[in-house]
């Protein structure tokens, strides 16, 4: 196979990993919203935790995006 084509396919496959991060981020915000509607007074106090969980989850998706970008432009 042409190496350039293999790189492109590899970059596309690497982006699948971002789907998992999408599921994770959706779960975090969905559960936050569900909990915030049950107890709105406690919601504001958990905002930092929400952002922390979001950041940690999103990092994994960003890693796969990084692999895709490396395959496309750096390697």
């Amino acid at each position, binding site marked *: 196979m042409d190496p350039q084509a293999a790189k492109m396919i590899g970059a596309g496959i690497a982006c699948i990993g971002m789907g998992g991060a999408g599921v994770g981020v959706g779960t975090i915000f969905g559960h936050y919203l569900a909990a915030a509607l049950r107890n709105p007074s406690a919601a504001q106090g958990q905002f930092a935790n929400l952002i*922390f969980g979001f*950041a940690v989850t999103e*990092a994994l998706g960003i890693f796969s995006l990084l692999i895709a970008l490396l395959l496309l432009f750096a390697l």
Partner: protein
Amino acid sequence: MDPIHQFEIKNLFPIVRIGTAEIAFTNSAVFMLIGLVLILLLMVGATRSRALVPGRLQSVAETSYEFVAETLRSIAGPEGMKFFPFVFSIFMFILVLNVIGIIPYTFTVTSHIIITISFALLVFLTVIIYGFWKNGVHFMKLFVPTGIPIYILPLVSFIEVMSFLSRPVSHSVRLFANMLAGHITLKVFGGFVTMLGAWGLLGWFGAIVPLGLTVALTALELLVAVLQAYVFAILTCIYLNDAIHPGH
């Protein structure tokens, strides 16, 4: 129409040569200086009059100050407030650089891994050095969670050490990749507009869709720019909390 072209670093004029390496004043340095001057103008200008009822500029400065102070105090406790100047400088610098990058024809300093990894390593080394200086060997309690059965403790400690060591990587790559991906997306959609526009009148009508999407994505990028600066600051607070209060 190369979407990567916007991240190119240009040497404006050379400063000093060390061997074969050239240290030059680049467009990245220009935008860092602009960011620094903007922060200085905001902070110095806002605190010059020091009115009891703050004006517009003063309330921007006060709100950002109190926002970071409240975040740091709630995460790292009152002892963490000695790191307030550090966290506030990092937050304001990244925030201003991110927001400057949204403006067309500007350069996004934080879209380069060397910038973000410098910030992340600064935080990482601060945590290690301050942690050992303040707590001595007790800093190692960070890697030994309490209440874990002894036979799986080596495995858990290994995972804790690994996650600690990967912190600067995830800390820096998150900011850098978010900025990079966002700006590439904007550029790609901007490219669709010019491509369709080249088709003539019919293309002009078609170009309304990607143009509208570009505007919407710019708004989203503004949210991401502020959010990533906040995320960077909040993770800095959490890592500093580990240095101040090790042990789970």
